[in-house]
């Protein structure tokens, strides 16, 4: 005979109630855990992608769009900027590095980015095979692109027009794979890199065609009438002080606009943070409902349990001991719900990662614990203790002699 045996015996006595409360608690804890893991992974992801980029400079428009297009590559860029203006930025002593990027085409949904080798440094990327681009139409594939397309060094492919899948193929200007990058765990894994000249070359040709057809449409990085153009420039400051003056100067003195990835992604996070707050609130509600269910189950059981508790007192159990027994019963249930819930939350994330390829990078850390989970477990345990407080108080105050006599 031991305490665990007694606690288990009571849990088994009303298995349906026990399982229902356990299920409610587990679902609540699993939901909060999943959200916690997802927002942590997303936050880390956003920070890692933008870690080395202090400023994105591009055409005037939405600063959020600039960041989404230029840093995270999930949106189309607002327009082009003159290469000449970008070159002027390089002379600024407050700026350590300027990396121009030219976009407009994609390969199987992966953006083809015309840039300089310094781009690799911004994302901590290294070559796994081959070499960097030297001639126009040389391409280096990000790790995910190489894996999904099966292309290796020496292969060639045609980019398609536009940044969405299904654009017209530039079949007459195929790219040649000269290198493949190691997986960096950042957005660069999903990009195709080439020289800026390659993008110009593809679209010069197109420009001619367009002129022949008397069509005129705005498109990507191009040789416009005012000279060469690029889509954006990624800027790294020489000193943190630059944040004070450089963006303002770009916005007022040039035709371009500057956007800070840190600021814009924080803004983005607050927008959909409201959504996660709602789901989190719902999960807390589930936990509270579970605690309430546990309370009602325990309290109702007290009418029957008082005789058991009275006989335990008669057999030598102190007031404190019968109280502790009730509390422990509730805490054990809450702890079981918390542990199963946390495990389920992790398993769900791993499942989502396995199921949806787009989320696989977020699910990479599915089995690492985050600090917020301590709070979730504490919340569940607190619910368990609160649920048992009133029944425990009743047990403490129990009139043993009267209860045994009235039985």
């Amino acid at each position, binding site marked *: 005979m031991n305490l665990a045996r007694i606690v288990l015996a009571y849990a088994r006595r009303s298995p349906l109630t026990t399982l229902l409360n356990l299920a409610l608690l587990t679902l609540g804890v699993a939901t909060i855990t999943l959200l916690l893991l997802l927002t942590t992974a997303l936050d880390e992801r956003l920070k890692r992608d933008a870690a080395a980029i202090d400023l994105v400079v591009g055409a005037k428009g939405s600063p959020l769009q600039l960041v989404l297009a230029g840093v995270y590559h999930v949106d189309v860029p607002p327009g082009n900027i003159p290469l000449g203006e970008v070159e002027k930025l390089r002379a600024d002593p407050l700026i350590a590095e300027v990396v121009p990027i030219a976009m407009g085409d994609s390969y199987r949904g992966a953006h083809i980015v015309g840039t300089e080798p310094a781009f690799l440094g911004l994302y901590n990327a290294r070559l796994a095979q081959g070499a960097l681009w030297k001639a126009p139409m040389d391409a280096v594939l990000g790790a995910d692109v190489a894996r999904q397309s099966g292309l290796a060094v020496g292969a060639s492919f045609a980019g398609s027009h536009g940044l969405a899948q299904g654009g017209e193929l530039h079949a007459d200007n195929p790219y040649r794979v000269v290198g493949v990058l190691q997986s960096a765990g950042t957005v660069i894994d999903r990009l195709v890199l080439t020289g800026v000249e390659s993008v110009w070359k593809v679209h010069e040709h197109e420009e001619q065609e367009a002129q022949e057809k008397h069509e005129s449409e705005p498109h990507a990085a191009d040789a416009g009438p005012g000279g060469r153009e690029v889509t954006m420039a990624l800027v790294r400051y020489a000193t943190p002080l630059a944040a004070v003056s450089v963006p303002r100067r770009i916005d007022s003195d040039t035709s371009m606009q500057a956007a800070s990835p840190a600021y814009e992604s924080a803004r983005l996070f607050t927008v959909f943070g409201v959504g996660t707050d709602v789901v989190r609130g719902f999960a807390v509600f589930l936990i509270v409902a579970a605690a309430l269910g546990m309370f009602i189950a325990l309290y109702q059981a007290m009418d029957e349990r008082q005789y058991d508790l009275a006989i335990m007192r*008669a057999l*030598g*159990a102190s007031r404190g001991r019968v109280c502790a027994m009730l509390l422990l019963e509730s805490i054990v249930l809450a702890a079981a719900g918390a542990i199963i819930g946390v495990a389920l939350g992790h398993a769900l994330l791993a499942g989502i990662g396995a199921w949806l390829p787009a989320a696989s990078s977020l699910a990479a850390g599915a089995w690492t614990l985050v600090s917020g989970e301590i709070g979730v477990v504490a919340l569940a345990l607190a619910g368990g203790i609160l649920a048992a407080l009133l029944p425990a108080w009743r047990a403490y105050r129990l009139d043993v002699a009267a209860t*045994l006599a009235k039985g």
Partner: protein
Amino acid sequence: MFALTGIEHRYGGRLALAVPSWRASRGERWLLAGPSGSGKSTLLAVLAGLLRPSAGNVTVGERDLLQLSDPDLDRWRGRHVGYVPQRLHLIASLSVLDNLLLAPYLAGTGTERAAAEALLAKVGVGELAPRLPETLSQGQAQRVAIARAVINRPLLLLADEPTAALDDARAAQAISLLTEQADAVGATLVVASHDARIRGAFPQTYVLPGS
């Protein structure tokens, strides 16, 4: 063995129990008689250390019970008192054997499973050990409750109306089982009952006057 002097207990001002003096020696068998409402159950609760009377002295063994702190009194009761309530109160979620083992567990005396099984066999319900109490007959449940009361070898074995729901033959069996088990562990037996059928089995009787 025990001595009660000047015991009075009041519920909300009403005198529910008055015992000027009652002494018993070790191994004696007492019938505690009196009409319903005379306070027999209350007096058993006082003897068991479950109730502190409004006035008086309670000595059991060498112990002055009313001098003990609550936790000490609980511990003392677990070790030295075997109590068979009228409704038996076996714990429905525990098996017969676990009901038995609960007593040494709560009293903090180490009793082996084998000893508990042997005791069940001795009171004639050895084969019921794994069953749940709700599957037992009244007579079987009473045997289990008596075994639970004596498993810690108490100084004092108390039973409240043990024959109230039984026919003549079973009532006699219940009393003989109680006296047998009290003798086996050397306990003083006190049976509270207003059942005239069992008077002959008790050499000593203490009568509580009706109010």
